[in-house]
């Protein structure tokens, strides 16, 4: 699961790939040529980025005639979200405890 999460974060760490992923997710099955028409990048560059997204499990490709059609896999984001949620919850708990600790420390001794 961990390496998969890293691959997802790495893939989405690039602004163009993030835009591509959003575009695939919002349009449904789409080819690299169609995507390149809407973005300021070449079809070759789009294809390269789609391969990275596919390796991270964020999109799947289905052969359609001479081109692949790409479809988003939103569930691929789940593990990354879980990591963010868990780390966030741990810090929430730690900082609540820190607040209590400092509050207790600053109160005059009985």
């Amino acid at each position, binding site marked *: 699961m961990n390496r998969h*999460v*890293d691959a997802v974060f790495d893939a989405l760490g690039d602004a163009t790939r993030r835009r591509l992923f959003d575009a695939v997710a919002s349009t449904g099955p789409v080819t690299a040529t169609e995507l390149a028409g809407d973005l300021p990048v070449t079809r070759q560059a789009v294809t390269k980025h789609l391969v990275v997204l596919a390796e991270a499990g964020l999109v799947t490709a289905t052969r359609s005639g001479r081109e692949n059609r790409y479809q988003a896999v939103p569930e691929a984001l789940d593990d990354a979200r879980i990591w*963010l949620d868990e780390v966030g919850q741990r810090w929430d708990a730690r900082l609540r405890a820190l607040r209590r600790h400092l509050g207790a420390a600053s109160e005059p001794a009985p």
Partner: protein
Amino acid sequence: MSDEHDEPVVTRSVELDATVDEVWTALTDDVERSAWLGGDSTIDVRPGGRGQVVEPDGSVRRVEVGDVDPGRRLGWRWSPGTGGAISDVEFVVEPLPRGARLTVTERRVGAYDVHAATAPAVIGRLLDLELLFLARSRV
């Protein structure tokens, strides 16, 4: 994809009813830190210093201290106790008119290399087995 999920980064910021010095001590003193971080922690708070945090479940996080700017900024890299990933933690303390603000940022660096972590233990066990076989073959 919403923006907060674009990067493997978690940030929390709290205003505390304490001085910057008190917050800094809560971060750097082992006894004070252990009172709130969760589990006992011993950390040599110097650049390159090492330490550990024993989580409530008994798992151990290894810590390596990065930048230390006394009273302002403390960074460390830690490995997960169980599961999870290696990440960099940074604390920034700022004075407020009344109290202090503490901002903590945890940035995921990469998956924990379980193989590297367990290799010495596995090799140790293999050596034990080998000794056992050697002992038996002598009988």
